[in-house]
């Protein structure tokens, strides 16, 4: 009798627990999705238009810079890359993004390359870099971005 009572009490306790968990899952799911909807604003995002207009994230902004270079470097197997300014993380991102945008051209370290992409914060930094190194300006894209040719020794 006591055992039966204990089993039933256990069953009831588990049933109550399951009911609480059911309610918690439903509440959490609704709340979580509601919060993420607020954060992501899908309708506003979609209404903003195609990516090159709507992509306001830092990656898209960094990528857009390199789009004009793609045609100029078509067929080039590898180019060097040099950049300055900003944090180390930002410089890393610029380099990787240049590689991502300019594939299949390999964007590698600049020291041994004949053609080099310079991506500085501004034209002043670019000019300073050119003064220090044996480079000739091939094409300037503004805002510290240029394609440089290494001058023959």
């Amino acid at each position: 009798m006591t055992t039966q009572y204990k089993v039933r009490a256990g069953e009831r306790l588990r049933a109550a627990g399951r009911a609480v968990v059911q309610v918690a899952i439903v509440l959490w799911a609704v709340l979580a999705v509601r919060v993420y909807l607020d954060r992501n604003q899908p309708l506003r995002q979609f209404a903003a238009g195609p990516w090159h207009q709507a992509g306001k994230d830092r990656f898209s902004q960094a990528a857009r810079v390199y789009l004009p270079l793609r045609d100029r470097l078509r067929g080039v197997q590898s180019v060097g890359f040099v950049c300055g300014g900003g944090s180390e993380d930002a410089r890393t991102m610029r380099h990787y993004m240049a590689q991502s945008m300019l594939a299949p051209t390999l964007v590698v370290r600049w020291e041994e390359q004949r053609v080099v992409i310079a991506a500085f914060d501004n034209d002043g930094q670019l000019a300073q870099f050119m003064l220090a190194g044996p480079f000739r300006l091939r094409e300037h894209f503004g805002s510290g971005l240029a394609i440089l040719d290494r001058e023959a020794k």
Partner: protein
Amino acid sequence: MSIAWVMVAMGVSVCTGWGLLRALWPRDSAYAVGKSGLVRIPLAIGLGWAVGAAHYCVWRVVYPELEWLYRLMDCLVIPAAAWWAGRMARSGSWVPPRAHSALQPLSPIHRSYVGALVGLTLGVGIAAVCISAAQAWREPLGAWDGWAIWNLKARFLYRGGPHWTGMFSKDIWFSHPDYPLLLPASIARLWSYLGHENTLVPQLTAVAATGLVALLLFGVLAWLRGVEQACFGTLLLVSSKVFLYYGGAQVADVPLSFFLLGAIIALAAAQRSQQGVRALFALSGVLAGCGAMVKNEGLVICVVLLAACIMRRDLRRNALMLVMGMAPALSLMAVQKTLFAGESYLVADQSSFQAVVQKLVDPSRHQTIAWALLDHNVGFYPWRPLAACPLAIPLPNHPGMVLLLLTFVCGIWGVGRDRLAVAAAAVTLLLTVGTYYVVLLIMPYDLATLVESWPRLQLHIWPSLILVLFLMTRGLGESEQACPASRSLAR
């Protein structure tokens, strides 16, 4: 090339996947598409997706100058062969899944409740897919790994011509030249049909993979445990922040979780089948192999899945079929890794064997990883409803995990017919976590940064973990009177 070609390419992929699935999935009139349709449709899409990507890679390596032949093979020969294989396969018969409605007819109130729950799950699921889509839309190039690894490789494949192998150059080590190519190849394949590159293809691929995982989990739980359980399992999955974020981030973690889930489902299905068990083991192997073509972690999953099956005597005799299923994908991976990709940085950047041993026995590294694991899963953070509020409410970092654990505690142990599959799956997941732990331990980089990737690694097993824990118990919502085990206990 146009949108019409893209539709054709996607259509033939589904046909290929469906044909292959027919060849490996036992047929029975009662359990053909009607009951297991929500399992078979996502699996067929996933299989077709993988075959299309694998063939794209083969084309790039073997006969890149014959594009007409590639299209002929891709759109006609491969789907026809898969379809033919599906028709030729012998059918098996099934032990009917435990039909809840047959055990205990639902009362009208309960029926309304289940209907409302399904409606709610559908609404939350659609909202979740929209959130992932918005994430993909907001970062059209993908998250960091999306553009620096996966989309970069897709661009090499699509634009590279004969120079596509440049992606394996050690100069761009940051793109992990040894990573597998299923995701990039599937994107490049659609770009080649489209005739130009855009961001929409990787975005849609990412969102589709997210939707497929949710659909597959719902389908399998509805099939094996009933619609009510399926709703709770799916709600747990789609309310996970990590799942939603990476769903739209254009990375390979969500596709890997899809293939792992598929492999476990095939094992569970094998337990239900009276005939065609070997074919289902092969299917499990094929899906695990597809996971290996998605990410290197998939290789780990292949090994631990095989180990888990070998550990159980009842499953051991079918382990060979598992290996045979994995063989095509693993062969492709072997070719990639030996002929093209260099050594993995995990091996190449290790200074010495002593350094590895030193890391393995360093207690501070164990502490860092264990703490990250615990903090992500059962840790709490103080949440203030208002910035000025002096009292903070402790909220769990990963509420889904807490709720899943509670489900496990409150559910009644009822593995039943799925015992072997559940055991193998549970061992697979445990070994996977264990391997990830060891890999993090010996990584030759800053550990504090690496452990931040733990939630992403855990995402690989998250849908499978929900499935396994729901299969281990009778889960939520089922009346105990319907359970023979609890009746005997009450007597």
